[in-house]
């Protein structure tokens, strides 16, 4: 049995009762639902598999809310405890990931958010530097299409850290929305539910966050 990246179709299918060693090597073979089922039965391997699958995402989202990595780790640990205790309250109406994020965000907020709770949602203003436009609102300089060999340029060693740093510097709410939507791939409905914000606010925050990240990438991907 192949365990490489080409076996995704296989991975998406329900796992048949193949040998345990195979399951461990090909973690993706088991769906979330299957792992949850085993976790309900107190299966430690299922717990480890879920932790392996979601720890990175949980830490990243936690870090987008709380001020330090240490607090983020505590919050994530607390989240896993909540998962083990509350597993029977998961009804499968949302994806497991969204459910995990909801538990996480609640705990992260009570653990101490970066921001003051009364911080304004957004300062407003344009998402693109007004100096880029002339008096009639047209671009002063042509906007250069980005090189299409971004694959070559996005080796993890270069753009990865740049984007991580840029994300970290976004205003809190923008960072949270961009992390959930564009890094973790949640739908707008799920992101709104996880963060408890309106669709309109979510869109504004996403808009500003993406525009800011584009600005950071521009000098690296624009034509030389």
């Amino acid at each position, binding site marked *: 049995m192949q365990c490489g990246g080409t076996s995704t179709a296989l991975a998406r299918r329900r796992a048949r009762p193949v040998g345990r060693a195979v399951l461990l090597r090909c973690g993706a073979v088991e769906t979330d639902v299957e792992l949850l089922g085993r*976790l*309900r039965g*107190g299966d*430690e391997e299922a*717990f*480890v598999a879920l*932790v*392996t699958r979601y*720890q*990175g*995402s949980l*830490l*990243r989202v936690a870090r987008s809310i709380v001020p330090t990595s240490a607090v983020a*780790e505590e919050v994530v*640990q607390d989240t*896993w*405890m*909540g998962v*083990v*205790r*509350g*597993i*029977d*309250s998961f009804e499968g109406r949302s994806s497991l990931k969204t459910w995990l994020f*909801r538990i996480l965000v609640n*705990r992260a907020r009570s653990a101490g958010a970066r921001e003051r709770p009364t911080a304004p949602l957004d300062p407003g203003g*344009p998402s*693109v530097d*007004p100096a880029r*436009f002339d008096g*009639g*609102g*047209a*671009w002063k300089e*042509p*906007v*250069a*299409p*980005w090189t299409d060999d*971004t694959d070559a340029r*996005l080796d*993890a060693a270069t*753009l990865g850290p740049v*984007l*991580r740093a840029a*994300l970290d510097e976004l205003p809190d709410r923008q960072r949270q929305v*961009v992390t959930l939507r*564009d*890094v973790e791939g949640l739908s*707008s409905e799920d992101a709104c539910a996880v963060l*408890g914000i309106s669709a309109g606010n979510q*869109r504004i925050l*996403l*808009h500003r966050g*993406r*525009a800011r990240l*584009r600005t950071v*990438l*521009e000098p690296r*991907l624009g034509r030389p």
Partner: protein
Amino acid sequence: MPRLLRRDLVCQQAVELVTAYLEGALSRRQRRRFEAHLRGCPNCSAYLEQIRVTIALVGRVEPEDLDPEARRDLTDLYRRWRGGSAGGDTHGAGDGGNGGNEP
């Protein structure tokens, strides 16, 4: 340069509609105006494409790998949580109940 009609968007307005456009949140009329602007404006078309590339690149930011030590710590904790409950009953493991789990 053709005369600007009142209903025409200028670039500075168009760029503020990009996310709503990508989210499918523009009204039909707004979408038509936006797309009409794009057809005549290579700059805003390039801008929209750059935003698309940005989204794709952000989506490839990998989470940092879970270090083996953190995994061991969590596994130990799991054993303790399990150990604290009688007869392997996972949801009886503590005094917190399930109350805090759903928002």
